[in-house]
């Protein structure tokens, strides 16, 4: 596990041999590319209304059909990917950084610092992740920044826990004493020496959490606590289509499929990374 980053070439070779990881990467890269290229490839403006053809079924002009206001669902899904993915990425990144830093400090310092942080983490983990996100957005109010903050906070305890656990194991290693014998400060030891040793586990968890974050964003949007309309987000589009689910199911089906594809892709990546960095699974 610790040698995983050191033996990067072989881990990389193992990773590329795993078909799940390759497929997952392909899906996620494709979706990200579509989101980035939205202004050029989306056939219509996502908010442009065509009042003459509301709730039109999929056709050559509108591949995914149109919604109640006659907006092109394909364009909305492509533009929505930008919001959904960036909220997911930014929230996960913030959660990973904060959680990992706090976890390393807890694991390295031990004593009261550790006990306090661990107790707080346990309290936070006792809330279901979605309820917690919901609570935070309800308190902070729906805006894109608050949404990112809320989802990031729900990610923090998981990363505290994994970073603390790995740090506790690493702290016992002789090289930590060797660092102290060279006069290195606690900060340098924590972030220059311990962090690179626990990165592989953090990265695996982050890839899985990215899926959770995107799902949370969609769920919050679905129950009306997401980015305020008319901005297109995947969960928001599913919600808008929900009122007409029986007569125009394509409104909800296509954005749901987009969410599903990214979920599966990210989980394949996470599992593949875990297998690739776990020496016990080495062929």
């Amino acid at each position, binding site marked *: 596990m*610790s*040698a995983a*980053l*050191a*033996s990067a070439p072989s881990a990389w070779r193992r990773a590329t041999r795993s078909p799940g990881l390759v497929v997952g990467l392909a899906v996620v890269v494709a979706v990200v590319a579509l989101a980035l290229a939205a202004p050029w490839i989306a056939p219509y403006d996502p908010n442009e209304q065509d009042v003459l053809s509301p709730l039109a079924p999929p056709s050559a002009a509108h591949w995914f059909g149109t919604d109640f206001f006659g907006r092109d669902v394909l364009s909305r899904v492509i533009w929505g990917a930008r919001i959904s993915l960036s909220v997911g990425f930014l929230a996960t990144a913030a959660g990973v950084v904060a959680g990992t830093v706090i976890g390393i400090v807890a694991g390295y310092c031990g*004593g009261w610092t550790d006990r306090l942080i661990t107790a707080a983490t346990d309290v936070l983990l006792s809330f279901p992740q979605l309820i917690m996100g919901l609570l935070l957005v309800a308190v902070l109010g729906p805006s894109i920044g608050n949404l990112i903050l809320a989802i990031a906070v729900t990610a923090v305890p998981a990363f505290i826990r994994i970073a603390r656990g790995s740090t506790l194991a690493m702290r016992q*290693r*002789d*090289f930590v*004493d*060797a*660092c*102290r*014998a*060279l*006069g*290195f*400060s606690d900060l*340098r030891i924590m972030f*220059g*020496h311990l962090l*690179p*040793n626990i*990165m592989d586990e953090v990265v695996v968890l982050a890839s899985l959490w990215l899926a959770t974050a995107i799902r949370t964003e969609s769920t919050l949007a679905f129950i009306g606590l997401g980015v305020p309309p008319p901005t297109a987000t995947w969960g928001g589009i599913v919600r808008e289509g929900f009122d007409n689910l029986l007569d125009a199911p394509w409104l909800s089906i296509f954005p749901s499929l987009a969410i599903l594809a990214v979920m599966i892709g990210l989980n394949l990546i996470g599992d593949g990374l875990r297998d690739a960095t776990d020496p016990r699974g080495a062929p």
Partner: protein
Amino acid sequence: MSEAATNGAATNGAAPAPARAGATRVPGADLLRVEGLTTQIRIGATWFDAVREVSFAVQGGETLALVGESGCGKSLTALSIMGLLAPRVGRVAAGRITVDGVDMTAASERQREAMRGDRLAMIFQEPMTSLNPVLTVGFQIGEALTRHRGLSRRAARARAIALLDRVRVPSAAARIDAYPHQFSGGMRQRVMIAMALACGPRVLVADEPTTALDVTIQAQVLALLADIQRREGLAVLLITHNLGVVASVADRVLVMYGGDVVESAPVRAFFARPTHPYAEGLLRAMPRVDRVQELAAIPGQVPTLGEMPDGCRFQSRCPLRVERCRERPPLAALPGRPDHAVRCWVRAA
């Protein structure tokens, strides 16, 4: 006369050199001085003396070997000097440690940090685990230079190549970006030595530096250390339980038992005439090629800290035990041999 003062006089064989304010290089001056060091470790809620009133001094170019079996306090002495005792578990309860003129016991943690890796360095026993597995050896060797000398990454890397070359790692420039797992045990110990030497320390503490290595590699690493020491005038505190290593590299020997220094002697005098019953037992338990003799084991085991007897700590295993051993004997010089001191009522009477 206090115990500590007796120790100091006995081990130096002369009056202690006057304390120096700065770090001026006086030839033959003591680079490392330990006076009356008592280190305690905590078991449950009780603090036990694991090192008792240990005193010694090491000059530039000199190697002092600290000998004894596991648990005798030799590694704790080293950690006390480095200031690396685990807080909450170990503490220096009394005594003074001076490194290159700097009083380490009075220094703040920040000052101690600045000394470690710069003027005071340490080599560890386990080269397999003492290097960070995910950083290149070049980075690890150079890091002390960026920390203490403010060198840039690039300058530190260039110095690291020179250092790797000096510890005789073949094709240093090509291997500077390799990771520790790509090195053998002996090569890793050379990397550790290069790390320790990066900033040109004055005092080197080597804790069982060759124990984990193959015998042939041991000899090479010891020769390398001796060579570097001679060129740089390092004061070396060598911690070992291997008397063969002591005979080949040490100038003086300090034998520890149960946290006490029980014998202190120049290396020749020690091997010619081990005087403390424990030291005698140690030597008799070591096989020799030049003499046919039965190997004699020392009966019994080292008592645990909680069961350590008052007075002489070796009394429960000693063949020469007398009534007076219930009192703690002083570390006293042998008659007519001011540099050979023994802590024994019977032998140093």
